[in-house]
């Protein structure tokens, strides 16, 4: 199931990257978009609350006033409130499916995955509360059906449904309770969202400005074209026969009506349980490599690995034996073995005058000295008939192994941000290759969240360790094309080689021999 889903997601990614550009691609910002929609719902909700009347007759009438008399502001606010909540529901669902398809829910990522499950319930409960407050026939249907659902549980002493027997049974206090719940549950949702992103560095809680602007504009158009309106007022003395349902959130209600509350509980709780235990279910995925290890002899306490770790697995402590210095500490429960820390370590420089290259922090499965040895041995095999290219690729992005040729060497690793910029300098300075290509996951969608972003910043000299100015930029290319862009990357490598060939041909003969 995961494979076709991943393929579908990759196709959508490519399509949206073309249309929106990778920076605005909504598929890479589903979490940020969910936060954005939450804030729209929260802000518009405050406005609606000012005019909302918490009484049986006042609830529906006040919503009508907001939508009809005050259509130019209140009506738009209401439409934003409603459509943003529905859009949040869609984004959250896509976010869940995407993380599942991309295999980003197990290992140390279990926390974000599991903490997301209660958020689904809280989001659902928040939305239901909102529909309920309007007190139209949809609210009436929700009220009586929710009562059926809860009355099935053996914990209810007095049936909840007895509150909705008829008009005489309903009280104004019920609406006060609903308002309290409709504010309290979203606050709990917000707290849950904060916990959900607690273990990740630099979580994207906002979409890019362009995407946010486009979303707001689209919502404004939709709100003017199809404003959210109430249905006929609720009347508990008359049963609801047909109702216009919001199928985004209320689809479980049709299950309650047709299959009964017991089976609906079984489905909802069963599904939540399966989702919760999913990270620990047997899978074909490769076992995680051993976590990063700190070498105190080579750690100078600079903290660059701490700044770059995408999962807050690195902290600092007092150095084991250098007084007044600090050293990095890796929390094995949080480390995902991406190796980005090794790429950030200033000690990971092949120019160091040491017998055997070592570094302050590295992952045992792909130590920096192994990367150097692999790089050197692969480059040594290349034939100088054409410009020699070194392609560094990541195991989750474009498949680089297939691009190997007599003049192209490829090295794949967990994440290309594992490559210290000094390695590129080293390869070109030692004339081991004429060009270096760095590839990986799609721009904005790194498997380890921040790898390609950090590499871009290191190359643009915005993040330590930087790629030194002396490295000729025309001999280095960064291409973030992802797994789906493997064919395009092969084409890019050929183009790179041709460009280097032209450049070499255009240089004076003496300088070529140099």
């Amino acid at each position: 199931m995961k494979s076709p889903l991943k393929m579908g997601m990759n196709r959508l990614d490519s399509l949206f990257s073309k249309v929106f550009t990778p920076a605005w691609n909504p598929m890479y910002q589903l979490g940020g978009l969910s936060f954005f929609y939450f804030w729209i719902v929260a802000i518009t909700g405050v406005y609606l609350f000012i005019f909302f009347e918490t009484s049986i007759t006042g609830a529906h009438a006040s919503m009508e006033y907001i939508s009809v008399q005050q259509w130019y502001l209140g009506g738009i606010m209401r439409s934003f409130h409603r459509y943003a909540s529905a859009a949040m529901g869609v984004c959250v669902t896509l976010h869940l499916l995407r993380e599942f398809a991309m295999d980003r829910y197990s290992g140390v990522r279990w926390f974000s995955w599991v903490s997301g499950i209660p958020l689904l319930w809280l989001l659902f409960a928040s939305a239901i509360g909102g529909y309920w407050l309007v007190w139209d026939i949809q609210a009436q249907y929700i009220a009586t059906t929710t009562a059926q659902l809860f009355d099935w549980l053996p914990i209810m002493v007095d049936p909840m449904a007895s509150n909705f027997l008829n008009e005489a049974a309903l009280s104004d206090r019920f609406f006060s309770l609903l308002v309290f719940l409709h504010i309290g549950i979203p606050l709990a949702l917000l707290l849950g969202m904060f916990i959900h992103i607690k273990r990740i560095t630099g979580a994207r809680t906002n979409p890019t400005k362009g995407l946010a602007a486009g979303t707001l504009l689209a919502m404004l158009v939709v709100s003017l074209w199809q404003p959210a309106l109430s249905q006929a007022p609720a009347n508990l003395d008359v049963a609801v026969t047909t109702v216009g349902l919001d199928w985004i959130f209320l689809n479980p209600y049709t299950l309650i009506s047709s299959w009964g509350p017991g089976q609906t509980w079984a489905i909802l709780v069963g599904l939540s349980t399966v989702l919760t235990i999913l990270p620990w279910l047997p899978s074909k995925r490769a076992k995680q490599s051993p976590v990063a290890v700190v070498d105190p002899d080579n750690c100078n306490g600079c903290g660059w690995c701490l700044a770059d770790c995408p999962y807050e697995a690195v902290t600092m402590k007092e150095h084991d034996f250098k007084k007044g210095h600090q050293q990095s500490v890796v929390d094995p429960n949080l480390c995902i073995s991406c190796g980005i820390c090794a790429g950030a370590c200033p000690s990971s420089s092949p120019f160091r005058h040491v017998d055997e290259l070592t570094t302050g922090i590295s992952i045992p499965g792909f130590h920096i000295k192994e990367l150097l040895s692999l790089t050197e041995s692969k480059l040594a095999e290349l034939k100088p008939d054409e410009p020699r290219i070194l392609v560094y690729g990541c195991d989750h992005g474009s498949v680089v192994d297939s691009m190997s040729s007599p003049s192209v060497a490829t090295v794949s690793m967990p994440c290309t941000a594992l490559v210290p910029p000094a390695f590129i300098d080293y390869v070109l300075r030692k004339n081991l290759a004429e060009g270096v290509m760095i590839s990986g996951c799609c721009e904005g969608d790194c498997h380890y969240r921040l790898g390609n972003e950090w590499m871009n910043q290191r190359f643009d000299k915005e993040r330590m360790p930087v790629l030194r100015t002396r490295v000729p930029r025309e001999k280095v290319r960064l291409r973030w094309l992802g797994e789906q862009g493997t064919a395009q990357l092969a084409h890019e490598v050929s183009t790179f080689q041709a460009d280097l060939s032209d450049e070499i041909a255009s240089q004076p003969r003496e300088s070529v021999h140099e």
Partner: protein
Amino acid sequence: MNRALGYLGQALCYTLFFLPLVYLSHEPTYRVLDDDTALLKLAVRHPGKIIGECTTTTESGQGMRPTSMAQVTEVCPRERSALQLQLILDGKTLYRDTVPASGLHSDGIASVYMQFEVPAGSHNLQLRMNDDEAIEGYPWQFEQDIELQPAQVMVANFKQGFRLQ
């Protein structure tokens, strides 16, 4: 990609995202109840009779009680009878069940809520309840011919006897 074409594509994507979202926010309509059908609700909330006899306290027994309970002259068991309920429509039993008293010691109120979809029109409704395990049969009985309109909600509840609302 040409910038204008890109914006056009984005507009199309937003449309494709919001169009189903707007449509699904109220369509397709869902049929909850068939035409020419009414709802009959049975909602009873009633404490069953206490099971067992109350006993009068003796003077010596009163002396052993806390002073706040000195005035207590009678001690009763806590457990209450379950309710035996029956709802018969046009001679056909739609509901027949025993509703236990709530609480760990079965000393609370027994509550039941049921709803039945019935065809609109004239019906004969009978309600029966026994709230005392010590006696046989149904001490509480109610019978009435009723006329139900389509989509009408009729509530049968109990307050010192069955009544319809």
